[in-house]
């Protein structure tokens, strides 16, 4: 794609304009300030816990460390530090996912989402907050009970106090995320997740560097290969993320008026990867299940199955295949959840639009369904590859310092970065108009 220079200003100009756009400057400052606040909160410890014993245990117990480590990715190291923001934005994210799933299942919610406009969406947002409160309560009680053994003075008071601190922290973070969405730049919840993922980057880098300095030639080679694969994955992810099929659409109103202008911009964009990061998350969650089950029951059969399904087991290809199949399945599931072709056809009718050569109504929904099916299979396979390859290369090179920077994290990072950049762009645009007014 050729981008003509007159249109898209270079980075320097853009930054200059960002600094000049007064509204934008304020928003960026608010966002950065709130994000820093969130980071700080992670290091405010929950009171009454014997920290030394806790961190000793964490380091001593590899298994426990692993689980916490996984959760740390999304809470930015909050769990291992046991700060008041340990739960972070996670309860809110979970609540959003729960509500998204429920909206598809419960007609009353669906009605709110579809037919009540902005007011309905506000109501759903309110519900999401309540659900996240519930979720945070649940999670914090579990954690509080679990850390009782490190308590300075164990007892019900400690449990209540810890749970309260964690819930309050989580609600505070949720509020901050909404503040960012409203007064800052980008989507608050996404940015917080983004921040939490990025927060672990310095440590990973440091570990990698240490490894490279201490290791032999093959380790360095492995790291280089890993880095290249990583870059390639990022490129791949941008493709999956941004890939869209554009179905042209004609509008009855424009047909009558001047047609020349509408044709270029009038299309229905269908994304290659409707579900975003969700299929991967669900697939991983399911793949972890036999593992946990085996740990829990210590059953011989389950253990063997778990072993076969492990990426580090004797048959990594079975794991990979399973992973891929699950990702494809969940991609279909999610795409059907997000985009209902019947509603789409109805909506096109409401707008007085139609896909050229396809009858409005049922024929349109069938046509869209067909396109969606083909798109989803393509997108899902691609997504699966992007998810598996870095893990595979990691396994082959035996360098684990980048663990956690799997496809999930990268997808989130890329998605959030693109969205936020776009939003910043629109502020810069208003600034440019302003410049034209002033001469």
């Amino acid at each position, binding site marked *: 794609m050729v981008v*003509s*220079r*007159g*249109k898209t200003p270079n980075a320097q100009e853009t930054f200059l304009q960002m600094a000049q756009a007064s509204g934008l400057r304020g928003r960026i400052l608010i966002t950065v300030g709130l994000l820093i606040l969130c980071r700080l909160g992670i290091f405010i410890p929950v009171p009454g816990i014997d920290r030394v014993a806790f961190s000793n245990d964490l380091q001593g117990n590899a298994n426990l460390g692993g689980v916490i480590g996984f959760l740390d990715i999304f809470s930015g190291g909050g769990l291992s530090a046991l700060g008041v923001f340990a739960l972070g934005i996670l309860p809110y994210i979970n609540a959003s996912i729960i509500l998204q799933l429920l909206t598809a299942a419960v007609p009353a919610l669906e009605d709110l989402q579809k037919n*009540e*406009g*902005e*007011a309905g969406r506000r109501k759903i947002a309110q519900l999401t907050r309540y659900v996240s409160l519930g979720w945070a309560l649940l999670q914090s009680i579990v954690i509080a009970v679990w850390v009782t053994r490190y308590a300075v003075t164990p007892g019900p008071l400690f449990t209540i106090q810890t749970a309260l601190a964690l819930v309050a922290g989580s609600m505070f973070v949720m509020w901050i995320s909404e503040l960012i969405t409203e007064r800052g730049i980008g989507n608050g919840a996404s940015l917080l997740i983004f921040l939490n993922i990025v927060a672990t980057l310095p440590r990973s880098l440091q570990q990698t560097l240490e490894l490279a300095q201490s290791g032999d030639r093959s380790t360095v080679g492995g790291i280089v290969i890993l880095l290249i694969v990583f870059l390639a994955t990022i490129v791949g992810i941008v493709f999956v993320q941004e890939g*869209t099929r554009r179905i042209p*659409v*004609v*509008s*009855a*109103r*424009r*047909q*009558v*008026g*001047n*047609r020349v*202008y*509408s044709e270029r*911009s*009038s*299309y*229905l*964009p*269908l*994304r290659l990867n*409707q579900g*975003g990061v969700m299929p991967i998350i669900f697939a991983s969650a399911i793949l972890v299940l036999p593992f946990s089950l085996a740990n829990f029951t210590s059953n011989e059969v389950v253990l063997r199955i778990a072993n076969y399904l492990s990426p580090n087991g004797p048959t990594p290809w079975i794991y990979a295949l399973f992973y891929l199949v699950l990702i494809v399945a969940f991609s279909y599931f999610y795409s059907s959840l*997000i*985009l209902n072709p019947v509603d789409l056809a*109805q909506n*096109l*009718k*409401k*707008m*007085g*639009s*139609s896909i*050229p050569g396809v*009858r*409005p*109504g*049922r*024929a349109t929904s069938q046509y869209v369904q067909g396109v969606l099916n083909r798109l989803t299979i393509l997108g899902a396979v691609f997504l699966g590859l992007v998810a598996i390859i870095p893990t595979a290369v990691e396994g082959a090179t035996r360098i684990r310092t980048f663990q956690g920077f799997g496809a999930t994290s990268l997808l989130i990072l890329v998605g959030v970065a693109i969205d936020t950049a*776009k*939003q910043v*762009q*629109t502020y810069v*645009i*208003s600034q*440019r*108009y*302003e410049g*034209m*007014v*002033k*001469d």
Partner: protein
Amino acid sequence: MLNLLLGDPNVRKVKKYKPLVTEINLLEEDIEPLSDKDLIAKTAEFRQKLDKVSHSPAAEKELLAELLPEAFAVMREASKRVLGLRHFDVQMIGGMILHDGQIAEMKTGEGKTLVATLPSYLNALSGKGAHVVTVNDYLARRDAEWMGQVHRFLGLSVGLIQQGMSPEERRRNYNCDITYATNSELGFDYLRDNMAAVIEEVVQRPFNYAVIDEVDSILIDEARTPLIISGQVDRPSEKYMRASEVAALLQRSTNTDSEEEPDGDYEVDEKGRNVLLTDQGFINAEQLLGVSDLFDSNDPWAHYIFNAIKAKELFIKDVNYIVRGGEIVIVDEFTGRVMPGRRWSDGLHQAVESKEGVEIQPETQTLASITYQNFFLLYPKLSGMTGTAKTEELEFEKTYKLEVTVVPTNRVSRRRDQPDVVYKTEIGKWRAIAADCAELHAEGRPVLVGTTSVEKSEFLSQLLNEQGIPHNLLNAKPENVEREAEIVAQAGRRGAVTISTNMAGRGTDIILGGNADYMARLKLREYWMPQLVSFEEDGFGIAGVAGLEGGRPAAQGFGSPNGQKPRKTWKASSDIFPAELSTEAEKLLKAAVDLGVKTYGGNSLSELVAEDKIATAAEKAPTDDPVIQKLREAYQQVRKEYEAVTKQEQAEVVELGGLHVIGTERHESRRVDNQLRGRAGRQGDPGSTRFFLSLEDNLLRIFGGDRVAKLMNAFRVEEDMPIESGMLTRSLEGAQKKVETYYYDIRKQVFEYDEVMNNQRRAIYAERRRVLEGRELKEQVIQYGERTMDEIVDAHINVDLPSEEWDLEKLVNKVKQFVYLLEDLEAKQLEDLSPEAIKIFLHEQLRIAYDLKEAQIDQIQPGLMRQAERYFILQQIDTLWREHLQAMEALRESVGLRGYGQKDPLLEYKSEGYELFLEMMTAIRRNVIYSMFMFDPQPQARPQAEVV
């Protein structure tokens, strides 16, 4: 709860102003003894102080705040001397709120007009102009003449903008310190100014300050309707008629349950005001039309069919529009008034015309448009007044950054708002209303019944007729509109029953016992009009509605379906007048009319002008015209005689409990309800209000949801038994809130999208204005040229390739295509140069070529080059902007689908809109450069004509 803790925030806001009021009151003692001359000198003194700080807006603002108490005190004193009206303390508070750029909520009859004089005086002192915005021409003129006296007395110039004024008059009036105008005149003048071909045509100055009267009506109710200047487009009308025929044959779906496949040909979505064809409907419509695809791009029918069905189902005669003189006239849902000249867009109006079988008028294309929202945001400081703003406080703050403050009333209101009564069915409700009317009528209390449409008002009227209750009917029907003043004048009389649409809401002042002013005015008309109005004038024009002076030619009147109408008599029904006139008053009247006939000649004035004379005579503005003076004398006499009667009746009515207002349906916004309620209990009079509702009302049916439907079945009560239930009241309130947020969200969305257009409009208008003012025109064109050269270089040179592979030949050809004077340019000259160097080289070449061109042109006629530059730039801007408007409209529609790609439509609209805008700017530059170099006037012909 927060209110309990912190106290009413409004009270605190008002409290803030109290010390200033005290200060003004203290100043009054110093100012009162001043002579007229000294008082007038104050203005000059203020101005001098302001002149010193005119360079800095911040300092000016500070100084204005400092001057406020003294200026307000001066204004109060002047008003006392000129008009005999002294501003109350609460009016001072109102004035300060307005000066602070806020909205002041003031109840009916609290003297908003007088309040507006305070901030307009203060803000006009800087000489940058203050605008007082009213809703119609009549109010603008009345206020300019009446309140303007005080301003003039104080040495400020006062201007007035009226429909039909010439550009010179407008410019002169806009140049005054204070200008009274209607919102639409202001908006259209702004648009016209930005279509001007030469700077001399521009009439407005840069905006400074505005006070908007009835601000909620303009910024909220009218927010969604843009001001449009349009040109006509030729399009065949047969399609509309065919579509209407087809629509009439199609069947509406009967099952509205969304779960099942709907039967019939189409569904109606009342909430979204939309219709949806079913799959079968598409097939049937295509068969009826004999086409294979409604969306066939060579023979598109879909739009016509959709519109025809909408016209059939959603646009109802006597609710949404009336048919008048072979035209479809829209009835405004908020005010119940007809809006002549306004048309539904996108072919909808044509579809309705086709349905009603009247002549189908040609479609139009937008040349320029702006919404009131964005227009008024152009003012650096904006303020407004209304009786109902509090309910929409949030919207004012979020969208316009206008705070709302409620000004306390001068006298405590004695209005009682009685709880709603709800009936199960609509018919039960109407019966109850009729019964209530009958009872109150018997008691002797005046009653005003507010209905939501012409249709319903007539239904109730019929019901009352059956019971033999005398009443007046006020709605948008021409015969009723004509009698509006008459009906309103007697609505407060003993035992009067008045049925009205929302027309009797905003701005209607119902005076208990009857309005002696109006009555006297009507009497004047009876004598004056038949003697002075010329015969050709009164075809069927309606007083106060006819647009331009001169009105409609009579020939068209004869051609109307009504045939030749009998000549108007201007006779008001005799029972409106409370008393017979004394012979003395009659003599005075006759003398005034005789003088009028002698001065102007018998039957020689247009209706509008004649009406105007009466209006002036009835007002208090000073005049030198002997006829007006005579007329005024007669008017005063008549008024005095009537007032004697009405005063007594007023006392009786007050004794009985004052005006009772009956609402028959909740409106889409609580504001409209409150406007209706506000008719009762004006200026401390007693009064009461009550709403009669039914479960079948539109609002509940469409927005009430399932709950109300279930309630309908749950209540197994008789039709004419009122229902009382807490749950019901809550659902009712819920439904109304839902509607309000629903429309608020729509307006918010419109505003967010419109912001993009607004940015672009301001950018292009600024560019246009620079050209119009002719500042450095040549530099401008050369800059265009340089940008074009840069773009050509960028498009043809790929920096990533080695310089040997650059297609310089093509580049040079492109340059020659735009600038034929550079014919000697060779690709070789550009070899071995970097892209930057090529650009610089081309810039030099361009400048040389342009100078050459200029020399050529100037030989033909000196100065012609500048004219050509201006002409070509303006022409290109206007043409391409017009096309751009359409492109943006198409984009606006298509981004709605982006949500399916999980993209934010608004963000997409912003960024793609920006791309479109840049493309337009590029096209403007290129076309201007091309035209400039191709410009080749022949010396022998008149150069001016050649330019065109």
